[in-house]
């Protein structure tokens, strides 16, 4: 019964999305206040309906209702509670429902927080959100309905893919979706501006918090996914350049560019046409990612051709939204007035440089992701585009960008002083060079990339800090005054500093792991010891154990340094009964920023086991850097100028109250 109610709520949401698609946009066209005012409550109720549908499906999972096809395919009565909940989105249908839930959430948030927005802009934004809802709700109801019942319910479910039975899955997809579905809002703002034919600095101020929110979640989601793959898949890799990863990475690159170009627009009323295009492209890449992941095209181009209902549906959505928005852009963009003039050497110029390299890098990732598909369809040749391709294209495009990052914040708007900026960065440059030279001296001639990489990472990190140091005049005026200056700096300055610093930290982690990771793959007898990265790992033995829905062999290793016992490490080989599928559970110990990583291979006769151990120096910086970037994003989000509308909002709300 509850499942049917959920199904019904989803159909209602579809009906509401039709209303939301048509009425407000028509109202904006006719300048009819009452029609435009329909948008906000409809968006709110639509969120409620999708929320109910999602709750109903979750209920079916919690109660292990195997008469629901989706639950039967992906759940099991022995499955722990948390994985019953996360199992809701651990499959195609459920994850699309989560996608739409988040879309509806953003629609409702725009409706709730956009009270001070101009009425036509708000109506158009919500109208465009309605179009996206309409497309994806139809997709779910017509091709991927999670509420389908089975006539003769089986007694037991088929269980969730064991690799997905992990806390990582509970968090990773929601974060990722909050990120790339979040960019639907910026897309809607861009489309609304084009519909309106009007765009200004205020528009950029309205849209910026939404860019930041989406970017923050996408950054977290990607970092989380990377760490999950690192510990769950058992071979210690943190990035695979897998098409599925690229699908989330491309919107991140475009979104990061958008974050920077919106800044120019807000401050200087320039780069409007480009910013609007970037907003469209960012969400288009999110849609492309959804298509790649959800259509089955990656599994097989031919499976896509033989069972095309889902794939063709998403492809149609993709074509309509990307084609439609780009046509709208081509038609209306020339009407947007260009503002602010600036010299090439200026803050604007630096931000353009950032955009140029980020979009070029994004294009390289796009080509590497789509080329194998295109070749397969056209010639039938099967190729793989892996890390070497991306190292050759993405890498060289990132290096100039990283080198340029510290200069940006030192350049003034309109016309910057490159020489002055260079002088202020002398200390940072000198320290980075010294660090690179020390690394080169320790490394010898064997590894040229390590000192260069570490030097660049240090340059980005110290360069970021230098800007704050210079602005608070640290050391040039009494310390107390510096502190009060620091407290007075706008939060967005701290945001930029943390964002850039985090970027440098991530790079430092990647370079250190690539250059200095140590690996041992060996057969160990009980009692044997191997040393790695200065640590001694002793194999104590293998013991069987049983979990709620799996059996496992747990390896016991003791980790010592200089004879001092540090930790027991217990990697395991698990076997999930329902799916007859083995998984590897690695064991990780963290020391500072470094990690020791152990995973198990096959058991041998006589209690011996094949094991793989890594020493990974500075590896946690890869993800901590992303966390620092996110904190920077939060600082920017809390900046005063994004809240300037706040008092006015209260006033308006009070004034509007009697009218409602």
């Amino acid at each position, binding site marked *: 019964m509850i499942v049917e109610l959920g199904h019904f709520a989803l159909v209602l949401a579809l009906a509401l999305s039709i209303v939301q698609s048509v009425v407000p946009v028509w109202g904006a066209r006719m300048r009819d206040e009452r029609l435009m005012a329909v948008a906000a409550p409809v968006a709110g109720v639509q969120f409620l309906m999708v929320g109910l549908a999602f709750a109903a499906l979750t209920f079916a999972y919690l109660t292990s209702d195997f008469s629901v096809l989706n639950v039967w*395919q992906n759940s099991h009565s022995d499955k722990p509670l948390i994985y019953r909940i996360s199992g809701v989105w651990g499959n195609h249908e459920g*994850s699309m429902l989560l996608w739409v839930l988040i879309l509806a959430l953003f629609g409702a948030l725009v409706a709730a927080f956009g009270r001070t927005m101009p009425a036509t802009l708000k109506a158009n934004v919500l109208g465009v959100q309605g179009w996206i809802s309409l497309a994806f709700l139809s997709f779910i109801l017509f091709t991927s309905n999670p509420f389908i019942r089975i006539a003769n319910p089986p007694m037991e479910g088929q269980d969730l893919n064991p690799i997905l039975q992990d806390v990582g899955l509970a968090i990773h997809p929601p974060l990722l979706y909050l990120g790339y579905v979040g960019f639907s809002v910026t897309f809607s703002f861009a489309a609304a501006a084009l519909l309106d034919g009007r765009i200004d600095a205020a528009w950029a101020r309205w849209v910026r918090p939404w860019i930041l929110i989406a970017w923050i979640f996408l950054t977290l989601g990607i970092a989380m*996914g990377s760490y999950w793959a690192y510990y769950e*898949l058992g071979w210690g890799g943190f990035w695979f350049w897998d098409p599925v990863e690229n699908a989330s990475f491309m919107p991140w690159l475009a979104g990061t560019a958008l974050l920077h170009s919106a800044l120019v627009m807000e401050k200087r009323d320039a780069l409007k046409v480009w910013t609007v295009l970037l907003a469209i492209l960012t969400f288009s890449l999110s849609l492309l990612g959804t298509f790649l992941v959800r259509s089955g095209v990656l599994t097989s181009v031919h499976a896509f051709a033989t069972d095309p209902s889902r794939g063709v549906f998403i492809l149609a959505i993709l074509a309509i939204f990307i084609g439609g928005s780009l046509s709208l852009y081509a038609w209306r963009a020339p009407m947007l007035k260009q503002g602010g003039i*600036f010299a090439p050497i200026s803050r604007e110029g630096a931000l353009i440089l950032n955009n140029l390299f980020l979009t070029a890098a994004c294009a390289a990732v796009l080509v590497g992701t789509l080329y194998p598909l295109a070749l397969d369809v056209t010639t039938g040749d099967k190729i793989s585009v892996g890390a070497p391709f991306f190292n050759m294209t993405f890498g060289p495009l990132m290096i100039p960008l990283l080198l340029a990052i510290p200069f940006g914040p030192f350049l003034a708007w309109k016309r910057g002083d490159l020489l002055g900026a260079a002088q202020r960065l002398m200390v940072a440059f000198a320290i980075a060079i010294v660090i690179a030279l020390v690394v080169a001296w320790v490394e010898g001639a064997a590894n040229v990339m390590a000192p260069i990489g570490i030097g660049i990472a240090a340059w980005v990190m110290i360069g970021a800090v230098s800007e704050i140091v210079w602005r608070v005049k640290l050391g040039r005026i009494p310390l107390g005054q510096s502190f009060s200056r620091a407290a007075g700096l706008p939060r967005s300055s701290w945001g930029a500093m943390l964002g850039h610093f985090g970027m440098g930290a991530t790079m430092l982690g990647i370079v250190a792991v690539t250059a200095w990771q140590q690996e041992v*793959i060996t057969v160990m007898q009980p009692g044997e010891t191997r040393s790695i990265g200065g640590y001694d790992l002793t194999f104590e033995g293998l013991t069987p154990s049983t979990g709620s829905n799996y059996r496992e062999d747990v390896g016991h290793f003791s980790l010592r340094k200089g004879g001092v016992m540090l930790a027991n490490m217990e990697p395991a*080989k698990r076997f999930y009964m329902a799916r007859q599928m*083995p998984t590897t559970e690695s064991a990780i110990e963290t020391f500072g920023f470094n990690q020791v990583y152990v995973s198990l291979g096959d058991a041998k006769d006589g209690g011996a086991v094949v094991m793989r151990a890594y020493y990974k120096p500075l590896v946690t910086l890869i993800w901590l850097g992303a966390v620092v970037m996110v904190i920077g994003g939060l600082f920017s989000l809390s900046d005063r100028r994004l809240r300037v509308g706040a008092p006015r909002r209260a006033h308006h709300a009070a004034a509007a109250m009697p009218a409602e």
Partner: protein
Amino acid sequence: MAMTRKQRRLSMIGGAGAVLAVAAGLILYALKDEIVFFQSPSDVAEHTVPHGQRIRLGGLVKDGSIDRQGETVRFVVTDGAADLSATYTGILPDLFREGQGVVAEGTVGNDGIFHADTVLAKHDENYMPKEVVEALKARGEWQMGADNPAAKGAPAADKTSQAETPSAPASRTN
């Protein structure tokens, strides 16, 4: 010193053009040199892949062919028509089994043995690499029999949630 509006615009367009040209050049160069072609054991037997050229070898792990000596594993990859001996040092993915599909990356040595440095497996017991399926079909080895591991792979493959399961190369070089 001050640039005219025209000069400014030209310098920016020139800069953007230069970056895009470099990007395009890098992409074209990398597409020529840094991609790996997929081959079946028959392809290797027929076309004699140059020694040292990286390929992606796909097929089934031949029944009874896995021979583990310490951390080194020898196995035979077959597509029914031809066999190719392969060797790999390291820990194989969880789903590496006899009779199952496998995709390995590496080079064919002078000894005629395929030296894999990466063995790929999707983390899903139903997953059959698409290249393997198509190669097997091309060789007439594809049957829809229930006992054929290949047969149960393909129909289910598009239902599995790819988003949450990145492929997991087991790699020594990475």
